[in-house]
């Protein structure tokens, strides 16, 4: 199951929602990580925007990642935190900045570029 989709002219992360305990979470799992429900967990969008909780500019990483690159934790509505890479100049980032979701190359495997979700400042 893809963990993002295009919607309303933008990108939305797709996590899951548990109807038994009302937990929204990411990434999607078949079993609810809070109440353990085996049924009633369905795909669910996360809010379109989140707040940057923390971030770092990474200079040392395994070869499949092109350094330097920026990573961070983004907090979405309903208490969902997602880790990912951030596009744009790290000097423009601040803790608590409003972030949107985008898609880009996250790593390379062999000669292939692997696409995945990333974040960017919502106002730029």
């Amino acid at each position, binding site marked *: 199951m893809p963990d993002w989709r295009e919607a309303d002219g933008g990108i939305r992360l797709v996590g899951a929602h548990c109807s038994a305990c009302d937990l929204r979470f990411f990434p999607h799992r078949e079993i609810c990580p809070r109440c353990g429900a085996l049924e009633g967990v369905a795909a669910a969008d996360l809010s379109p925007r989140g707040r940057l909780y*923390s971030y*770092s500019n990474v*200079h040392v990483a395994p070869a499949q990642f092109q350094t330097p690159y920026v*990573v961070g934790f983004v907090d979405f509505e309903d208490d969902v935190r997602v880790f990912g890479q951030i596009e744009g100049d790290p000097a423009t980032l601040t803790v608590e900045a409003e972030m949107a979701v985008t898609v880009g190359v996250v790593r390379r495997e062999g000669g292939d570029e692997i696409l*995945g979700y990333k974040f960017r400042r919502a106002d730029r």
Partner: protein
Amino acid sequence: MTVRCAIVGVGMSRFAKQPDRTIEDIGRDAVLAALKDAGLTRDRIDEAFCGSSYGGPMIGQRILRDLGLTGIPITNVENACSSGAAGLRQACGLVESGRAETVLVVGVDKLTKFGGGTLPLEATDLDVANGMVMPALYAMRAQRYMHETGAKPEHLAMVAVKAREAAALNPHAQYREKTTIEAVLASRPVTDPLTLFMCCPSGDGAAAVIVASEATAKRLGAPPVFVAASVLQSGRYKTGRRDIGYSELTERTSKLAYERAGLGPEDVDLAEVHDAFAIAEIMYYEALGFCGRGEGSAFVAEGRSHIGGDKPVNPSGGLLCKGHPIGATGIAQVCEAVWQLRGQAAKRQVENANVALTHCTGGGISGFDHGACAVHVLTR
């Protein structure tokens, strides 16, 4: 009625980059040193544990084969940075329950086999697939911690400077040259705001301890060090917000350890804590109860955690400078604590050392504070 568990022997291999030696030889060095320290022959070992994260299958058997120490129960333990300490907890449990009299625990890893860089993590983990590396996780802790408390990169540098000062006095340490705040800040960036000197080095090493019942310890004659608490906990998986600038896992594990030992943070005379990155030590001052929340950076700035301070932390030089061969770390911390409690720590000796705490934690998995945490309280 449970048996009181004592540490009767400790030993370490060299902690260094040793690409030309095998992991088996490095492990053997530590086991031989611990047997010699205990004054025990190999036939007195009832059972053995080997903690290693990257040593591969049957690492314990491969080390003990070369010592003729086979045919006994040997259990290999993998729990990331807590691998060795998790093995020690098993060993203490056997002695306390009377199921074994004398148990060997060796921790070992050889990280130069990866050729440098960050520790390899599992690609099936979502965060790892998206570019998470251990120094990035700690860098984000540092960034958030500084945002919330007003701490500065200079405070992170102070931890590294303190570690080098201690390591300069420790012949077992990997990096022994003193440094300055300016030099730490000017060392090359790894994951902002962490610079190279704020990160533990890659290296190879092993450490071993032998635990025994109090009765056996008394027969051996040397003044024993007692294990007052041996606690292991795992992280709690969470999909939402958590304060990454404070370790709930370390707080929970150490509280259990204090409770079992009947002691509190105020009773600890020295601690060996998991300073894999400089921010970690500041966070663990708080989670271990040595100071209040948000007070960690002032704690190091005021010199309280230096060898001459009121709560010496990492008198060995810690992971930052003594080195951090993953599986060996928890056992090497216990070696240092035992030497301190016996008064054998030479130039880095903490005065009036009666109670020591060792703490290791690690394992980068998405949704966890850390995978595992182990805390031991040792008394003399």
